[in-house]
């Protein structure tokens, strides 16, 4: 553990214990860390275990196979209803008398702000850095397939949500698991729902909170110079507290507005860089296609490219994880399936558009070093990734790629990462809360307990490099997918009934556009 983290933990300890006990607490934290790692290690290893004889994590296979099954089962719904989804988001099918309710656009934007983030910036750089340009191809394939998973889970999220007398709603996988299984006369729905909720709370505190706080601190420290992480943690925790406990909506609103702006700015900057190098676009796509099937010398060859592409797409768009089903369930619509159509745009925007932009910029600005003699990519000294111009990887690789065209862009990127992290935390605080209230019941005090725990974890996440905890939290997010996809296989026939009925009524003209 480095000095910074020791300082952070010590500071953290003083918050909760007598200052004189701080040093002892640091030692205690180390012990807790170790005990935690020992205790959770088998679970983390199990979730990220590779298929025997390969480096391919079975959980990624689980998500990709599910996405393929849903794609085939719903006969390529993501292609057939793509333009209809855009019409729905535009409001063409919205009844003017329902104006004032959550619109399809708002539900989509809210769900996107929970997924667009580090996965699109750092995750893609990792994928391309290790798997080469070919990883982009497999990432796009995974994104396109993932659209069917989102469609399935979000339709069910709206269909089986709870609507309370006071007009508020709660929805998500835990509700379709218990209510959906009950409706079909299947046993075990309640058990799946409880399991999902536990993993969701852990995922919310970890991947949706500590990991984000940690990365945000790294970005800020990268600009200002190193300083103790707990300072970032306390500031973030106070802001998160004001938003989720204090009900200070103005901060959330500002973030919710700035984040899409940052997203658009990011894509626009990427497009400008790509157009500035227009003569290389053909070459870049050539590299992507050639790399997808030959590997072009990357570690692991074609399979290496495929693993990285699939893995990073799954990490980025969360299709099949179940989180989006919670976000989308707030839409008030007579047709739950319309929200499914809208949600299938999410992996498209997140992965097919934004992730591809990042990958193209990294490839086109030639951050990856090619051996001039063989035309293949050179490996770094460790031999586990492609050598890059300045030895960058992760966020710094993306930053260097954008910075090679606009010297000021790394600063914008740093701000974007911090804001993306913050909006992801706000989104996950809600997902975690919904799982929490599912387990313990709705109520002001019960909700407050979770929110305060959430804020404490912001400080812990920013202050300490709790590797085992973060590993465990990431594993918890993917454990959500294990339970969720399992339930989706049983419930997908409900979605098909909805799809058939809706498609018939759309064709007959019973469902039609409104004059606006």
């Amino acid at each position, binding site marked *: 553990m480095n000095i910074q983290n020791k300082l952070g933990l010590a500071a953290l300890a003083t918050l909760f214990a007598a200052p004189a006990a701080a040093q002892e607490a640091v030692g205690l934290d180390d012990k807790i860390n170790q005990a935690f790692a020992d205790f959770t290690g088998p679970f983390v290893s199990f979730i990220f275990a590779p298929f025997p004889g390969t480096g391919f994590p079975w959980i990624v296979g689980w998500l990709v196979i599910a996405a393929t099954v849903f794609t085939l089962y719903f006969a390529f719904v993501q292609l057939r209803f793509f333009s209809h989804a855009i019409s729905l988001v535009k409001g063409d099918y919205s009844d003017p008398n329902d104006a004032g309710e959550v619109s399809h656009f*708002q539900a989509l934007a809210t769900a996107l702000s929970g997924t667009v983030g580090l996965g699109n910036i750092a995750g893609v750089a990792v994928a391309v850095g290790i798997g080469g340009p070919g990883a982009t191809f497999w990432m796009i394939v995974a994104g396109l397939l993932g659209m069917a998973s989102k469609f399935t889970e979000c339709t069910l999220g709206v269909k089986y949500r709870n609507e309370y007398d006071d007009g508020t709603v709660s929805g998500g996988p835990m509700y379709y698991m218990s209510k959906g299984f009950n409706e079909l006369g299947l046993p075990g729905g309640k058990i799946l729902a409880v399991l999902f909720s536990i993993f969701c709370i852990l995922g919310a505190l970890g991947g949706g909170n500590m990991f984000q706080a940690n990365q945000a601190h790294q970005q800020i420290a990268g600009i200002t110079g190193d300083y103790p992480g707990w300072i970032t943690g306390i500031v973030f925790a106070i802001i998160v507290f004001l938003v989720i406990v204090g009900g200070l909506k103005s901060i959330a609103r500002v973030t919710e507005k700035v*984040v899409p702006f940052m997203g658009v700015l990011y894509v626009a900057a990427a497009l400008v860089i790509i157009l500035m190098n227009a003569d290389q676009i053909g070459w870049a796509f050539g590299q992507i296609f050639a790399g997808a099937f030959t590997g072009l010398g990357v570690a692991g060859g074609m399979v290496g490219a495929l693993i990285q592409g699939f893995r990073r797409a799954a990490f980025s768009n969360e299709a099949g994880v179940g989180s989006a089903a919670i976000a989308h369930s707030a839409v008030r619509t007579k047709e739950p399936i319309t929200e499914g159509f809208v949600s299938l745009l999410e992996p498209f925007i997140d992965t097919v558009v934004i992730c591809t932009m990042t990958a193209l910029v990294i490839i086109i600005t030639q951050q990856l070093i090619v051996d001039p003699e063989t035309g293949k990519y050179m490996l770094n000294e460790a031999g586990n990734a492609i050598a890059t111009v300045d030895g960058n990887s992760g966020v710094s690789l993306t930053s260097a790629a954008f910075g090679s065209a606009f010297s000021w862009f790394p600063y914008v990127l740093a701000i974007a990462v911090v804001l993306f992290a913050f909006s992801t935390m706000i989104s996950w605080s*809600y997902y975690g809360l919904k799982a929490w209230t599912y387990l313990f019941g709705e109520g002001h005090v019960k909700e407050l307990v979770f929110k305060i725990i959430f804020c404490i974890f912001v400080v812990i996440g920013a202050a300490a490099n709790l590797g085992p905890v973060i590993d465990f939290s990431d594993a918890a997010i993917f454990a959500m997918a294990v339970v969720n996809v399992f339930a989706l296989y049983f419930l997908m026939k409900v979605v098909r009934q909805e799809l058939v009925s809706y498609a018939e009524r759309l064709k007959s003209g019973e469902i039609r556009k409104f004059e606006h």
Partner: protein
Amino acid sequence: MTTKIVIGLDGTETGERAIAFAKDLAERIGACELLAVYVIEWSPFTFQTPEENALRHKRREEEVELATTRVVTPAVDALKAAGFQAQGIVRHGDVAETLNAITIENGGSQIVVGRSSADGFKKRLFGSSTQNLVMHADVPVTVVN
């Protein structure tokens, strides 16, 4: 045939002036129905947190209730007490677009509104709702100062 006049209310004094003008107009015309309309400014293309989305339906009901009890019902009651045929409508949306849409739906022949009370930067940038209404309405619009 009854002439329908739509009155755009905004809960301020300018709305009161619009009502007074519409009453005067209705007396001159004779067979006239007055529609008192309050549009709650809202766009389907804003960004919200998941929690705001979950509470949205409840908030909407509260907003409609508030606009109805505070602005529209008193206005309609006062119009009826003064011997006019009147009804009230509350809807969310872009003020100018929605006022025009309600007018068309109900066969209104003209719209009466008070001069916009919006000010400052937003008005300079986007123009006021009144300006937008005057520019884009499908029926004649009277703006009362």
